[in-house]
């Protein structure tokens, strides 16, 4: 058993982190907030060229030929960087929608009564008729509400897992941001991170993130629906509570529009709504206990 990242997996993760640091840094993030609803098509094509969408397609079909563990690693990086756009929907459509694999097409998906990025999409998976625009809580994710009668495509375990990977990225990033802030921000003549009350918030953020990491990576290896449901619950918790605790560590700055902390929390809320919320996963895990 070697349940650790391989050299190749490390390189893939570092490569994606490098690409996002170059093409979607803090400045690009702020620019995106300033132009709500607009998707950077140039970046989308670059992601396509880097194999983000074609990652799991066979090489014979022009894909990268990698598996779910690798997909989870690049989606974790996307989550960490707060990368915008219907990433999961387009990745899932890579085999079926022309142009999706190369990043030429943007694909939206009906999920949990919502559609992200509908106006920017070239294609929609599922029935989005009667969709009504919301004033989205997340300035970086335009949302449409779909009538309950409209058909939600059956909850796709891979979509749930890739969302959990994004949540894991948020959990990790939130912990990093909180720690950076706690080391530099001084009050009462010392860094606030020297106070145990702040330390313990940060420690719990790490504990939640690392527990979720083990669950998400294992689910990527087994591709088992119960493992995926468990990964999703842990990752949602790690992301939402992590971002909230990060906001708390930031103090007053955390409540401002300027600090990026609120963007992590709002995105984590949006992702937690995918796949029908947590209820379905909890029920699946409960029933599995009786087997």
């Amino acid at each position, binding site marked *: 058993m070697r349940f650790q990242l391989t050299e190749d997996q490390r390189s893939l993760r570092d490569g994606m982190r490098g690409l996002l640091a170059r093409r979607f840094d803090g400045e690009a993030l702020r620019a995106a907030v300033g132009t709500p609803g607009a998707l950077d098509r140039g970046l989308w094509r670059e992601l396509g060229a880097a194999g983000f969408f074609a990652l799991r397609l066979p090489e014979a079909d022009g894909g990268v030929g990698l598996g779910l563990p690798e997909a989870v690693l690049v989606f974790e990086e996307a989550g960490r960087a707060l990368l915008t756009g219907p990433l999961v929907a387009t990745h899932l459509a890579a085999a079926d929608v022309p142009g999706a694999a190369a990043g030429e097409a943007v694909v939206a998906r009906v999920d949990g009564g919502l559609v992200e990025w509908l106006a920017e999409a070239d294609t929609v998976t599922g029935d989005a008729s009667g969709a009504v625009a919301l004033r989205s809580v997340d300035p970086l994710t335009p949302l449409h509400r779909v009538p309950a009668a409209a058909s939600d495509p059956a909850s796709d375990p891979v979509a749930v897992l890739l969302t959990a990977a994004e949540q894991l990225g948020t959990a990790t990033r939130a912990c990093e941001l909180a720690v950076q802030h706690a080391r530099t921000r001084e009050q009462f003549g010392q860094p606030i991170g020297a106070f145990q009350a702040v*330390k313990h918030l940060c420690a719990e953020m790490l504990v939640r993130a690392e527990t979720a990491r083990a669950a998400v990576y294992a689910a990527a290896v087994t591709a088992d629906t119960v493992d995926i449901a468990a990964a999703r619950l842990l990752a949602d918790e790690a992301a939402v509570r992590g971002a909230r605790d990060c906001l708390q560590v930031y103090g007053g700055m955390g409540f401002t529009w300027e600090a990026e902390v609120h963007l992590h929390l709002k995105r984590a809320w949006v992702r937690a709504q995918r796949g029908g919320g947590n209820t379905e996963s909890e029920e699946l895990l409960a029933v599995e206990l009786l087997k």
Partner: protein
Amino acid sequence: MDLSYTPEEEDFRARLREWLAKALPGLPPKPKPEDWPGRRAYDLGWQRMLYDAGYADVHWDASPTVRLIFLEETEKAGAPYVGANFVGLLHAGPTIAAEGSEEQRARWLAPILRGDEVWCQGFSEPGAGSDLAALRTRAWRDGDDYVVSGSKIWTSHAEVADWCELLVRTDPQAPKHRGITWLAMPMNAPGVTVRPLRTLAGSAEFAEVFLDEVRVPVANRVGAENDGWRVTMVTLSFERGTAFVGEVVACRRVLGDLARVAYRNGTWDDPVLRRRLGRLNAEFRALWRLTQWNVSEAEGKGVPGVGGSVFKLRYSHARQELYDAAAEVLGPDALDLDRPWALDRLSSLSYTIAAGTSQIQRNIVAERILGLPKGR
């Protein structure tokens, strides 16, 4: 990322399963909890069976993955716990193996592996819990002996132990971490008094040990005088490796049993409770994966990684949640100590305290892993 086991590891698992299926029916009846001599004989007898079958040193010489398989399979088969052999196999033994002289290794290691001798641990004191290095039990040289006076607390199996791995202060003037020495003290030495300590669960799983001018030969010192803190840290890193493998397996079984009880008694129909059990399933599945992650990391580096503190924080809390959920399923029966899980609920309360409280573990995680500054 690979969760599959090598053919050699699978072979080890298959042979172990086969042996357990044959060996376990031959065990004598389990002694009563308050029967200390009976417990000693039972636990040592089990260790002797492991020794004869070639599994005695799995904690010392096997790879972390093989150790994981051993702990997983013995728990699943319902084999006895390590019990009275705990300190010998997982604390004192590894310390002597790493830091002892050739004579010391020859004297003490084989009896531990064969199931001949029981060790206990004399570390904590009434005034030295989380702050272990503040210990005050004094030892001074008198010829070829140390003379030891003081008191120890939270000592398991003290009533039936042959040896105690003892931390004493040999230089009261030195900074607190630098004046400590590690001694192997014979428990039958004059001046050693053991007093059982009754816990909130009503039983005496621990003892206090009072030391009144106990003579311990200098030859029983492991490591140099005043180097005992470093010697001890070797031991503690063993504890945070695969320490909870069997327990996570056991918790997952309890959770399954609990779900079936809930299904039968109707509490399953309450969606809030049902989903709470579903969440606990996610929790213990994740803890199993985290164990595999940490074991794989130890496999690569040869030593357990920093994941031990992360695991302990999460697991100790999850275990308490599990037995709180059990109480909700059982309703009034949860207050009956003769019912299953009522005592487990009580003993789960020690998990966020023993071997470093959750508060101390959070400090460790924050300072050593996250690099936050130490407070003033």
